[in-house]
């Protein structure tokens, strides 16, 4: 603290801290919580709501909860809160579905390899990024071999895929396959060739006009009619195709928005440089258009990942299906809150981090256009 009694030469007084009325916690509370009578009332209301909600949730989910128990009745004896014993006992099923127990390591390994494949996609400054991308490109083959047991590994039927693994498999495949398809559809919709344009518009509008569940019904009940008699076609594969088509139509609309935002001068400049159609798209237009559409694309991906739960309606057992099966078990009957809150938290973690990553990316790529 500066000595206030001392006389200072002009310009030599040390800087004083700003007064309490313009900085510090008191100032923060005043401007953010108590700036007007209405705000004081709102703050009081908010505090009252928090008082009502937060202790109840904490007591239920943590303090009064039972984490280890073999059945619902056991839970009720031990505590009055949530019965997480269910999630605990069936945790393996929630994650791996009905995948054979002794082969679960293959799912773990695939998950680790998947995270490694994500590294060059998410981290743009990683060393040897170009070579790492080669690995990312062949990862789908590795995952296929590992999960279904090809090349001499013990084979596993796709019907054994389940739990959160199934959600991730459908989600990731859908995301990876729908982006290129969606970009092609968007280019088709913007094409100067009338027939290509009309077909793209019809396809996109048809898919966007109907609910995903009807498409999944088509996949499960009707698709056999359209294949040569006698062909059988794996249900998980049919679902994958439908989910990809569905999300490609949405991606196409997002990318079209991005393409429309590119000034005409960019196309003309590319033409003037003598670039062909695909060259100008690849080198000039798409890098800019995709950059603008990143938030929309990630939103579509989040939507797609959430929509993977719909497969329970056509009889696949994803994480939600496992939860429903657990509820039907006499030992755990009536634990709707616990099961669905557990599933909700799993999805929340995945979707929320995807959304946050998109915001981070948007900020990072927002170069030179800021006013």
């Amino acid at each position, binding site marked *: 603290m500066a000595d206030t009694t001392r006389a200072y030469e002009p310009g030599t007084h040390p800087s004083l801290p700003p007064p309490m009325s313009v900085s510090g916690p008191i100032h923060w509370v005043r401007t953010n919580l108590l700036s007007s009578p209405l705000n004081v009332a709102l*703050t009081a209301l908010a505090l009252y709501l928090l008082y009502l909600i937060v202790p109840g949730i904490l007591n239920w989910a943590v303090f009064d909860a039972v984490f280890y128990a073999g059945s619902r009745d056991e839970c009720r004896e031990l505590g009055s809160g949530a019965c997480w014993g269910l999630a605990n006992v069936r945790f393996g099923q929630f994650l791996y579905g009905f995948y054979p127990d002794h082969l679960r390591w293959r799912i773990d390994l695939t998950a680790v390899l998947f995270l490694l494949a994500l590294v060059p996609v998410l981290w743009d400054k990683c060393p040897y990024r170009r070579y790492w991308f080669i690995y990312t490109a062949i990862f789908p083959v590795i995952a296929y071999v590992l999960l279904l047991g090809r090349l001499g590994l013990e084979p596993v039927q796709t019907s054994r895929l389940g739990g959160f693994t199934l959600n991730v498999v459908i989600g990731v495949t859908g995301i990876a396959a729908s982006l290129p398809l969606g970009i092609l559809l968007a280019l088709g919709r913007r094409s100067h060739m009338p027939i290509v344009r009309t077909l793209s518009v019809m396809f996109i509008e048809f898919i966007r006009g109907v609910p995903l569940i009807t498409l999944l019904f088509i996949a499960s009940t009707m698709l056999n009619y359209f294949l040569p008699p006698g062909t059988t076609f794996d249900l998980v594969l049919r679902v994958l195709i439908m989910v990809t088509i569905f999300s490609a139509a949405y991606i196409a609309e997002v990318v079209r928005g991005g393409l429309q935002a590119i000034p005409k001068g960019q196309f003309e400049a590319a033409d003037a440089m003598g670039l062909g159609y695909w060259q100008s798209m690849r080198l000039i237009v798409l890098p800019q258009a995709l950059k603008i559409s990143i938030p929309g694309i990630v939103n579509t991906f989040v939507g797609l990942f959430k929509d993977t739960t719909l497969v329970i309606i056509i009889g696949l057992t994803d994480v939600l299906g496992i939860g429903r099966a657990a*509820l039907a078990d006499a030992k755990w009957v009536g634990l709707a809150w616990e099961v669905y809150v557990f599933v909700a938290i799993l999805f929340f973690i995945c979707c929320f981090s995807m959304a946050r990553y998109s915001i981070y990316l948007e900020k990072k790529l927002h170069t030179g256009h800021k006013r």
Partner: protein
Amino acid sequence: MAAIEQDSDRFSLGQIWSDKRYRAVLTQILVVAGVFFFIAFLAMNAVANLEQLGKTFGFGFLWEPASYDINQALISYTSRDTHFRAAVVGLINTGLIAVAGCVFATILGFTFGVLRLSSNWLINRMVYCYVEFTRNVPVLVQILLWHGVIVTTLPHPRDALSPMEGVYLSNRGFYVPAPVFESGFWIVVAAFLAGIAGTILFRRWAKKRQAETGQIYPVFTIGTAAILGLPVIAFFLAGMPASLDQPALATFNIRGGMVLKPEFTALWFALSVYTSSFITEIVRSGIQAVSHGQTEAAYALGVRPNWTMRLIVIPQALRVIVPPLTSQYLNLTKNSSLAIAIGYMDIVATLGGITLNQTGKEMECMMLVLMIYLIISLLISAFMNWYNRRIALVER
């Protein structure tokens, strides 16, 4: 110049690929041929498969008796009615959940959207948490959660919870008082319609008057008073021709009143809450899109604060809000098809579910369901495009 023209006049086979114009034609011919053969392939397979299974293609099954029950029917329906009538009941249920959901989601979304912009940090953060928690959890999980909670944790009707007079919450549904209309009720309806018509005429007259003389009448206040007040006056003048049928506890069940089935309540609540989180973000960004300079300019011209909001900010914000809002309404309508997971009998559950399974007419049923959804989507977007054009900026 001349040489180039000569060149392009003479046609050589290599040009088909090297010349942009010919290549476009060739590409399109190839695409059409490809699509044609693909569809022909599918159609031929379908014909062969149907023949093999001994099935025929036709919509005659719609007039056969459905012989299944529907737990919520707004028009009279018994299991002896036709499949067609069952489909109509399902369609009405879809419409009901879509309209109810859109209304509730809009109310929630606009309220939270405004609160999200509050300068109050606590309110702001609480709405943020609400938005993130509801939109990052699959809507199907939310539907199942609320359904599960209603069915498994609420008591049997015998000892139903009664938070207030005439309302009973039980695992068979929420019982609320039902309005009973007597014969004289048409007077109240007529008064209500007269109030609306009078307000429209008054508004037109007031606008003309303002254009001529500059005098302003409080159209909003007078209009609200007319629309709400006239029916109330008519209600008492006509001798109160409506009453409430209160539900009452009987020995084993609850009698009377109106029941909101658990399926409907869960679906309605989950869809509204899920969609409202998206609408919240749309409203927030819409209001933020109107630059503060607009408000300041209005103040500088001496426009009062609430008029600034009504005449300057909201019309401009709506322009940004309406297009994405449309797609949220569409999404809600399409998401209502998830009803099948909890047994709410909408169009997918009736026509695409039980009817399909009973008659084995997969192709016809799915075609009808797809067509109905396409028509609904096109109708909603046509209406919203019309509205959007009406409020869009007229540029010169």
